[in-house]
């Protein structure tokens, strides 16, 4: 790394000089892709940074950023950094109450938000967090009658910035020059599987070294295109759409709205792509639903060539030897099925795709690789700037997360917990020395909380959360995530929660996928009135039972896991939802909470009852609550 490029604002200036007319950001507006090159981006950020200074934002302050992925919000992150502030992106779909904690914890005085919705949320919170003094909004729609003195439009802020810039020549350059690599670059709040969110402080140095490491590893250039559609508050988006884009100088594309991502993906055709397993899962579900609706010939062709792909596809991608006949079959399949399919999914130009955030079902993973998408896994956490382990090209294993990333040192604790030491490690949790001391030990190792093992080739394999891994009464290891992920691979199952710690047998809650099961029911002429009704349907139970039996057969094959076959299950009457605190905002199951909330159901599962009545409170998006009640059936299974 060159000495003068040690912070993101310096990188930005450099791109403006080196590649002034290469596209930096794109956004679809009124149906047309608008482009800003690096030079324009520099001008925009400059105006905004000076605008922030003009309204009193100072070095060391935190700037809240709330909204969907928009170029202007990425510029806000840069603008804050330019004048020595720290951007704090927050989850845009979080209700006001959840934001309150973060706003207070980060002592937010200044915020830049997307639209009226976010403005309303912040104004509601002004009483609770009186420190919020300035709110800039990007989208002026519906804002005409707001007279609150805290508000200022983004455009006006930039205008003030230009004036300020004229009045204070040299201020901007001097501010950037003052920035050091050891300064805080960003605070990312962790979703908090347990307890309150914690603010992870990452320095410019840590983020840049993670970005540079990844770029070298996958040979990324300034020609790449990414589509940024994941929450800006998530470390994945921060790394891929911000840190790496600014390090390599490639193009960040922002979708028109969160509903148009699939279309936008197809129009942009990104070359570098990152998504959590859930998104890949949804795409596959969509494909499968549409294939079931397709004509008989197409369906037959699809299934025939998918069989070919499953057999040899990933070997071809990895450059392993494959018989000539199979190669020919695969080439025909590529022309007839895989190519068009990749095109529909918007994956025609993908060179490298990553998934992380949760374990991905091996079959799901295999599917994308077999149709020629170079999908790889990495493993990491917010505290390590995303990267800990990465799968190198050509060394893909379905059950591992790859080798330690460049410069990262990984070792296992006696209890199987993964420990990490690396330059990308956070320097602290914001204002939480106690939590920092708990996470990073005296030798500088970060405790990830994940249980893993190294295989013979030095690849790390994550089994589960260290805290979740339990023991069954007969001493067998119980890794609930492992079982749940197997279940969730079926398009009909959206979520699953397995129980078995200190029990004789394993049982599970199942959440059906409304879209997939609804479509399935429609084609069979099964009438239902809503989620609860469909979930309780006899034929739905039969469908889920089939899936669970297949998982059991799978588990029976594995020596370590054969004792953890699912013996009894029930289909939940409502979808597990982050609004009801059952899932985290990144949609991970909050195991303990669910176990407490639905204790009566677990009792019924182990008590041998055939059914159990339950009433549950649900929260709607507008904050009101309602009740859902159902008599849930419990189904027994034979072990394979």
């Amino acid at each position, binding site marked *: 790394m060159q000495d003068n490029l040690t912070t993101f604002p310096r990188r930005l200036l450099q791109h403006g000089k080196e590649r002034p007319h290469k596209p930096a950001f794109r956004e679809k*507006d009124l*149906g*047309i892709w608008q482009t800003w090159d690096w030079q324009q981006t520099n001008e925009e950020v400059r105006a905004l940074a000076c605008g922030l200074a003009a309204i009193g934002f100072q070095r060391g302050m935190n700037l809240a950023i709330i909204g969907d992925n928009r170029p202007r919000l990425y510029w806000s992150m840069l603008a804050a950094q330019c004048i020595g502030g720290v951007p704090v992106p927050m989850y845009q779909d979080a209700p006001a109450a959840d934001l309150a904690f973060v706003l207070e914890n980060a002592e937010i005085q200044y915020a830049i938000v997307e639209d009226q919705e976010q403005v309303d949320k912040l104004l509601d919170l002004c009483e609770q967090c009186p420190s919020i003094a300035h709110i800039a909004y990007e989208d002026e729609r519906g804002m005409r009658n707001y007279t609150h003195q805290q508000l200022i439009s983004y455009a006006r802020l930039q205008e003030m910035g230009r004036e300020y810039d004229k009045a204070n020549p040299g201020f901007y350059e001097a501010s950037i020059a003052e920035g050091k690599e050891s300064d805080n670059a960003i605070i990312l709040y962790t979703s908090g599987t347990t307890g309150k969110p914690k603010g992870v402080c990452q320095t410019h140095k840590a983020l840049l070294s993670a970005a540079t490491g990844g770029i070298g590893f996958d040979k990324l250039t300034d020609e790449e295109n990414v589509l940024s559609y994941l929450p800006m508050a998530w470390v994945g988006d921060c790394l891929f759409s911000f840190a790496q884009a600014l390090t390599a100088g490639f193009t960040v594309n922002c979708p028109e709205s969160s509903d148009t991502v699939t*279309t936008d993906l197809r129009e942009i055709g990104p070359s570098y792509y990152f998504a959590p397993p859930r998104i890949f899962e949804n795409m596959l579900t969509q494909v499968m639903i549409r294939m079931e609706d397709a004509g008989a010939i197409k369906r037959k062709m699809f299934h025939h060539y998918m069989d070919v792909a499953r057999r040899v596809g990933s070997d071809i991608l990895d450059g392993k030897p494959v018989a000539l006949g199979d190669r020919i079959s695969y080439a025909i399949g590529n022309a007839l099925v895989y190519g068009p399919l990749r095109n529909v999914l918007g994956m025609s130009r993908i060179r490298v795709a990553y998934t992380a955030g949760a374990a991905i079902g091996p079959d799901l993973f295999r599917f994308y690789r077999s149709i020629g998408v170079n999908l790889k896994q990495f493993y990491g956490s917010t505290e390590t700037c995303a990267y800990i382990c990465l799968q190198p090209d050509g060394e893909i294993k379905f059950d591992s997360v790859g080798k330690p990333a460049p410069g990262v040192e990984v070792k296992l604790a006696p209890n199987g917990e993964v420990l990490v030491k690396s330059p990308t490690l956070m320097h602290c949790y914001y204002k939480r020395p106690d939590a920092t001391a708990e996470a990073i030990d005296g030798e500088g190792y970060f405790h990830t909380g994940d249980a893993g093992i190294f295989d013979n080739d030095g690849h790390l394999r994550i089994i589960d959360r260290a805290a979740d891994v339990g023991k069954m009464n007969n001493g067998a290891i119980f890794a609930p995530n492992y079982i749940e992920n197997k279940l969730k691979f079926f398009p009909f199952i959206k979520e699953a929660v397995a129980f078995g710690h200190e029990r004789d047998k394993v049982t599970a809650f199942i959440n059906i996928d409304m879209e997939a099961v609804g479509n399935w029911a429609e084609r069979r002429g099964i009438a239902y009135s809503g989620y609860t009704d469909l979930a309780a349907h006899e034929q739905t139970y039969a469908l889920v039972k089939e899936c669970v039996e297949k998982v059991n057969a799978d588990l029976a094959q594995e020596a370590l896991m054969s004792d953890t076959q699912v013996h009894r299950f029930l289909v939940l009457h409502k979808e597990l939802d982050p609004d009801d605190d059952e899932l985290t905002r990144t949609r991970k199951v909050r195991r303990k909470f669910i176990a407490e909330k639905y204790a009566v159901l677990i009792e019924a599962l182990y008590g041998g009852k055939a059914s159990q009545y339950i009433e549950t409170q649900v929260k709607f998006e507008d904050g009101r609550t309602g009740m859902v009640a159902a008599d849930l059936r419990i189904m027994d299974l034979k072990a394979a």
Partner: protein
Amino acid sequence: MQMNEQEAITAGRKIGDVILDMRNISLSFGGVKALTNISFNVREHEIRAIIGPNGAGKSSMLNVINGVYRPQQGEIVYRGQQRKNMDCYAAAKSGIARTFQNIALFKGMTVLDNIMTGRNLKMKSNFLLQALYLGPARREEIEHRRKCEEVIDFLEIQHIRKTPVGRLPYGLQKRVELGRALAAEPQILLLDEPMAGMNVEEKQDMCRFILDVNEQFGTTIVLIEHDMGVVMDISDRVVVLDYGKKIGDGTPDEVRTNQDVIDAYLGVAH
């Protein structure tokens, strides 16, 4: 929505002078008297609701306003000009757009194309140039497309831009129909039961769009609606019809306490 909030919204725009004055309108079909001697006016930038039980003559009234029906008696004064025999085309030309009780979209066409039809009256170039997509026609089409995209953005339906309307759920079709009316950049927008058959969430969305249209574009809105909650929340003034006669007229609060209106809705012993 609470009243104080609504007052805040009304405060932001100025309700102007009367732009549409219906005077002593009577309409009958053979022996059936659909409307009897009805007078009311609509002021610029206001949201005016027409309510009444089934068969009260609400839709007939809208049809009179935009020229589908011609009343046997009475006069319509629109922007100071008397219009006795206004046909639909002239009404549309003069800036009146509407949506229908039963959705009247082209089911096989995409959302974008449907909204584009709302621009029909504004297109100037001739058919041949349009077919060949030449010179001025091309520029014109690009301009109209931009307008349509603004409507699409306004109604938040980007994700279904290219979807055939027939495949959309009912609530979204209603929204597209509103979009087509908006594409005509109307001065008066007639909405015939915009929320019929919608669930609570869809109704909330629709209310928001209607208020936004009114506030942002200053469009005058005349709407028929059965949902009393909606009517009382969003309208500035309400006219009540029953059996083709006007039985009440005034602000939502006045109408709410009007004994004739209460009788019409709850029934009285005859």
